C-alpha cells in the first residue's frame, strides 16, 4: 500500500530525513518511536504533502502511484489521512461545515452524490459517540477553544468520518487522559480491517499495548535504526534510546 524508498528530505537545505525505507501493507499497523526532533512528524508531513519540506531523493508510492508530485488534497482524496500532532485552529470556519465540506469532496471524487446537511448530522452524531465527544464542539470554529485532548478527539472524529485507507496518527495519544486514550484506541481498533493501514507515531508504550502494532520502527536522527515487534517497545521503555545510537 505505502512504499517509501531511501527518502531524503529537509527544509531550507537542512536534511532531516536521511534515507528512510518503509513498506506498509494493507491491514497493517506500524508504529514509529523516537526522540524529540528525530524527524517523525517530518516524515508524516512529507507523506501527506506539506510543501515546506523538500524531498531531495528517494520515492514515496501509494498503491503504486508516485505521491510526491501530488498536491495534498489529491493525496487525501486518494485515501491518505493524518491526525495532526498539533491540530490547527481555523477562526470563523465552522467545524461541522468544514467536516461536511471535506466529506463531500471525497464523495464527489468517488463519483457519489454529496451528503445534505440533515443526513450529515445523523452521520456525525453516530461518530461523535464513538469518540465520546459532545455535540457542542460541532458548532464551534475548527479546533477553536478546544483543549489539547479535545483537539485530538476531533482528529479521530475526522478520521472516522472520512474513512481513509491509510491513517497516520502523529502523537494522537499525547494530551489524552487515561480514559480518553482508551476510548480513542478502541475507536481506532474498531475502525481497523484487512484493507486499512496505519502509521502511529508515539512516545508511549500504553498506546501500543492497546493497538498491537504489526511492526515498530525506531527513528533516530532521520534514519530507521531498528525495527521489531512489541518486545522492541518494551526494550525501549526499559533502556531508552541511547543504546541504539552509534
Amino acid at each position: 500500500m505505502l512504499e517509501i524508498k531511501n527518502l531524503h528530505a529537509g527544509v531550507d537545505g537542512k536534511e532531516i530525513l536521511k534515507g528512510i525505507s518503509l513498506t506498509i501493507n494493507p491491514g497493517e499497523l506500524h508504529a514509529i518511536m523516537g526522540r524529540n526532533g528525530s524527524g517523525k512528524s517530518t516524515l508524516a508531513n512529507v507523506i501527506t504533502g506539506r510543501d515546506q519540506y523538500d524531498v531531495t531523493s528517494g520515492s514515496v508510492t501509494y498503491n503504486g502511484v508516485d505521491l510526491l508530485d501530488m498536491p495534498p488534497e489529491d493525496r487525501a482524496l486518494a485515501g491518505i489521512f493524518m491526525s495532526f500532532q498539533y491540530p490547527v485552529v481555523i477562526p470563523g470556519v465552522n467545524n461541522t461545515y468544514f467536516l461536511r465540506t471535506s466529506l463531500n469532496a471525497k464523495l464527489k471524487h468517488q463519483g457519489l452524490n454529496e451528503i445534505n446537511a440533515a443526513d450529515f448530522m445523523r452521520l456525525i452524531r453516530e461518530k461523535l459517540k464513538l469518540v465520546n465527544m459532545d455535540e457542542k464542539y460541532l458548532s464551534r470554529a475548527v479546533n477553536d477553544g478546544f483543549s489539547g485532548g479535545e483537539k485530538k478527539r476531533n482528529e479521530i472524529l475526522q478520521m472516522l468520518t472520512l474513512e481513509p485507507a491509510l491513517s497516520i496518527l502523529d502523537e494522537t495519544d499525547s494530551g489524552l487522559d487515561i480514559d480518553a486514550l482508551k476510548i480513542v484506541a478502541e475507536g481506532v481498533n474498531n475502525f481497523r480491517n484487512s484493507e486499512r493501514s496505519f502509521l502511529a507515531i508515539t512516545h508511549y508504550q500504553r498506546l501500543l499495548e492497546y493497538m498491537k502494532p504489526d511492526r515498530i520502527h525506531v527513528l533516530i536522527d532521520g534514519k530507521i535504526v531498528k525495527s521489531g515487534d512489541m518486545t522492541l517497545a518494551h526494550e525501549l521503555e526499559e533502556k531508552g534510546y541511547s543504546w541504539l545510537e552509534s
Partner: protein
Amino acid sequence: MTQFKKQFEALLDYWPHEGSGLRSVRNTAFGRFKELGLPTKKWEEWQFTDFSDLKKSDFQLSWVDDLPNLPKEIPGRIPNTHLIFMINGHYQSQLSGLPEGLTVSTGLDHFNANPDEYNVNGNPFIALNTSMMNSGVSVAIENNAVIEKPIQVIYLMTDFSAPLMNHPRFNFDIGTNAEATIIEHYIGKSPTPHFVNSVSKIRVRENGIFSHIRLLETDGHGTYTATTKYQLNRDAQLNVTALASGGKLFRHDIELSFEGAGAEARLDGLSLTEKAQHHDQHVVVDHGNDACESHQLFKYILSDKASGVFNGKVVVREHTKQTNADQSNKNLLLSPKALMNANPQLEIYAEDVKCAHGSTTGQIDSEALFYLRSRGISKQKAIELIIGGFAKEIIDSVQNSDVKSYIDDKVTTWLESTMHHG
C-alpha cells in the same frame, strides 16, 4: 479646483431663492474649502491617500434632469425593512412608506431647525459637503419609540453619462429611550466616474439604543469620501457595522464622542478591496466622560494591488474614570502586491482606564491551508473558507438576521469573484 468653483456657482444660480442663512453657510464653507484645498501627501493624517484625480476631474453636480428612470427592482433591497430611497441624489418620497415614531425631513427643514449643526470646522471634505450639500435626509426617532424593522436608506448612483458628484448630508437623531436600526447604504452602479462626498451626523440620546449599518457597494469607478460623527449621550448604546466593498478610492473619517457617562459603543468594520482600489479609514474615539466603553474591530481584506490605511485613535480625557476601550485592526493580504498601512494609537490622559489596542497584517495562514487541503478540500475552496472565517467575526456582529444574511451574501459573492479573476 476651478471645476468645483464652477459647480458651486452653478448651484447658487440653480437655487436663487435659498434663504440667506443657508447661503451664508454655503459661502463660508466654500471659502474654507478654497483656503484648505484638497489634502495632499504632506498632510499628516492624509499622507497615504492620493486625491489628485479629484483635482483633475470634471464632476458635475446632479440636477433633476439627471434623474433616470426608476429601476424596476431597487438594487440592494434588504427584506423586512422600511425604505428611504435616493437615486442620483434625488429623494423618492413616494417609495418611502414609514412607520410611526419617526420623522423624515429633507435638508432644508433640518438646516432651518438646527443651523448650529452646520458649522464648517474640520477637514476640506466637510467644508466641500457643506458648501454644496444637495441631497440626503434627516431621520429623527421620537423619544421612547421602538422601531422594530430596520430603516434602509439607499443612496444609489446609476445611469448617468457624464462624471457626476453629490454631497449628501444625513442626520440621524435617536431620541431618549428610543431604539432603531438604520442602514445607510451607498450603491454605485456606473462605469462612469462619480464622486460621493457624504457627511453623516448621528446622535443617540439618553438611554437610546441604535444600530447603524453602513454599507458601500461599488466597483472601481467611484470615489467615495465620507465623514461620520457619532455623539452619544448618557447611557446610550451604539452598535456600528460597516462593510465597504470596492470603490476606486474610499476615505472615511469616523469620529465618536461620549457626551454623557455610561455610554457604550461597538464599531466593527470590514473592508474589501481588489484591483487597484484604495480604502483609507480614520477613526477617533473620544472618551470625555466617565464609565464609557468602546470596542473597535476593523478588518481589511486586500487583493491584487489594492491598498489600505487604518488609522485609529482612542483619546481618554483627563479626570475621566472607569474607561474601558479597545481597538483592534486585522488585515489579510491576498496578494504580494497588496499593501496595508496601519497605525493604531492611544492617547491616555487619565488613570482609571482599561485600554488595549493592536494591529496585525498577514497572509493566509499556511498551516490552516495545509490542514484543510489535507482533508481533501481544494486549495481554492480552502482559501475561500479561511477568508470567509476571517470576515465572519464582523458579519456576526450584526444582530438583525436579514441584514446579516445580506452582508454575508455580499462577502461571499465578493470572495468568489475575487478568487476567480485573481
